[in-house]
């Protein structure tokens, strides 16, 4: 905390970034204390998009909350659905049938690709490479969003997962279309990397900026690509092996220094690994049911779904980090307690540590490289 009294007479300047600043990715606000161009202290201020998601959910039946989880991290509603479905399935002891589990993995990985594409695009926007990389990313994202619309009915607010399965089966044509996208994607990534990875301006702006040491990252509960860019090997897809992730062969890309450049590059590599998972999943997906028979009656009557008294914590590797859902059931149709462990919020813990000592322009790309979505931060 800054003691303003001690600043009297100094050359320190307090600047308010946001909440309407275009580079804060929404309505995020940073109170930045500057000495010249150098950042001395930084305080994140959030809550501008707060709608008390948890209170809304505690007054609704379990099934109705699924639609609200879409609105947490609106860039990858599929991942949010996945986490919530997993937590409720743990609570009520339901399992998704094989085909549904494959579909879940496919959708979650497509969502990861979409998310990383958007992150890299907007990170470059923050760097000043105005809209060329974003629009290249948009072009590819559009194809995946078309798939999402085809399977779920909506491009962004998918609401596709159900407890014990998924909402709708995917036709062979759609699977073929996904295969086509997966097959064509490496060529795009090559092009995207040729545009960016070796670009001297990008390297100079990103390398050795916003370094996050591994021990601090672990202690501060940082997860996802930000943690892995610091060289810590922790990916819930490997550790928890939820869903069907133990059946696929993929690597966990790690960074060395933990600077902005590593965070950028880890995401590029993660997209390549996602493509590997997608290829395997698309080759292996079996025919069969898409919904567990136990869960079928609750589709028409959501209020009959009353899990036994107990609690569950379901977590998944969302593209932004560990997304956890903590549920306490008291045997009624509404959860007694519903909590979202939002990676976007907790990854902001170290924002000040990364920014102090850097130039003010770097604060923007450091924030960009953490990858927050305010729908999830503020909830």
């Amino acid at each position, binding site marked *: 905390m800054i003691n303003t009294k001690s600043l009297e007479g100094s050359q320190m300047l307090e600047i308010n970034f946001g909440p309407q600043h275009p580079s804060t990715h929404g309505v995020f606000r940073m109170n930045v204390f500057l000495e010249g161009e150098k950042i001395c202290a930084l305080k994140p201020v959030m809550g501008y998009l707060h709608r008390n998601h948890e209170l809304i959910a505690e007054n609704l039946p379990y099934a109705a909350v699924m639609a609200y989880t879409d609105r947490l991290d609106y860039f990858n509603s599929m991942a949010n659905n996945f986490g919530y479905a997993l937590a409720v399935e743990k609570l009520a002891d339901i399992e998704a049938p094989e085909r549904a589990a494959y579909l879940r993995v496919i959708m979650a990985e497509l969502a990861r690709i979409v998310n990383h594409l958007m992150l890299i695009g907007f990170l470059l926007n923050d760097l000043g490479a105005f809209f060329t990389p974003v629009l290249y990313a948009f072009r590819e994202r559009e194809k995946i969003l078309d798939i999402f619309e*085809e399977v779920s009915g*909506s491009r962004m607010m998918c609401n596709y997962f159900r407890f014990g399965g998924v909402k709708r089966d995917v036709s062979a044509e759609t699977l073929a279309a996904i295969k086509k996208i997966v097959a*064509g994607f490496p060529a795009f990534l090559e092009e995207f990397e040729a545009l960016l*990875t070796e670009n*001297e301006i990008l390297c100079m702006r990103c390398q050795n900026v916003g370094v996050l040491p591994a021990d601090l990252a672990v202690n501060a509960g940082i997860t996802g690509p930000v943690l892995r860019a610091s060289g810590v090997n922790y990916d819930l897809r490997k550790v928890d092996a939820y869903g069907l992730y133990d059946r696929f062969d993929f690597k966990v890309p790690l960074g060395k220094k933990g600077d902005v450049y590593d965070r950028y590059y880890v995401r590029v590599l993660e997209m390549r690994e996602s493509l590997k998972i997608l290829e395997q999943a698309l080759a292996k997906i079996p025919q069969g049911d898409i919904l567990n028979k136990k869960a079928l009656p609750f589709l028409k009557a959501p209020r009959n779904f009353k899990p036994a008294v107990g609690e569950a914590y379901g977590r998944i590797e969302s593209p932004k980090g560990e997304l956890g859902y903590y549920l306490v059931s008291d045997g009624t149709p509404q959860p007694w307690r519903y909590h979202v462990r939002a990676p976007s919020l907790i990854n902001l813990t170290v924002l000040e540590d990364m920014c102090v000592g850097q130039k003010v322009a770097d604060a923007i790309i450091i924030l960009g490289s953490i990858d927050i979505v305010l729908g999830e931060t503020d909830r």
Partner: protein
Amino acid sequence: MTLFGTGVLKGLIVTLKNFATSYFRKPDNGGIFTVQYPEERAKEIESFRNFPFLVYDGTPEKIRCVACGICERECPPKCIHIVMETEAGTGKPAKRPAVFEIDYGLCMNCGMCEDVCPFDSIYMDHAFEVTASDRTQELVRPKETLLKSNDYFLKIRPGTATPVDQKRRAAEEKKKTAQAAATPPKTNP
């Protein structure tokens, strides 16, 4: 160490190539994929869901909705309002809605009403050009504007509507044969 500036040059070649090829490549392969709305329209995807509408068979009087109120109760943002009609003479509840309103300003397009409806009556529409100059009045849609024919439903979402039609026809025939068998009149479960 490569020569300083080669990375930037490489990037510039990529943008130049994209600029040139965008003119003759196909839209899904790196060409210009922007659709000039409203003159042009993007391909409609069948499963697309926007706001709910009510289905009727043949004429608007033959509304499928029986005003049971399940969608009203299950709607997460509570945007549906239903009042059941009463028979003019007896005052008994008629299985028809007198009032059926959906507040489009509140609706969040989740599709829950479609999922829970036991009478195949409410479905998600494709119409997305819903504008109004008044948030409170024009966006509260009454029954008259929500009602759309089954033919329209078959046109926009044949994949969902055809099995529903088959199911309903089979149920009707079953009912007819049951009645024809002259057994004591069964009530519809």
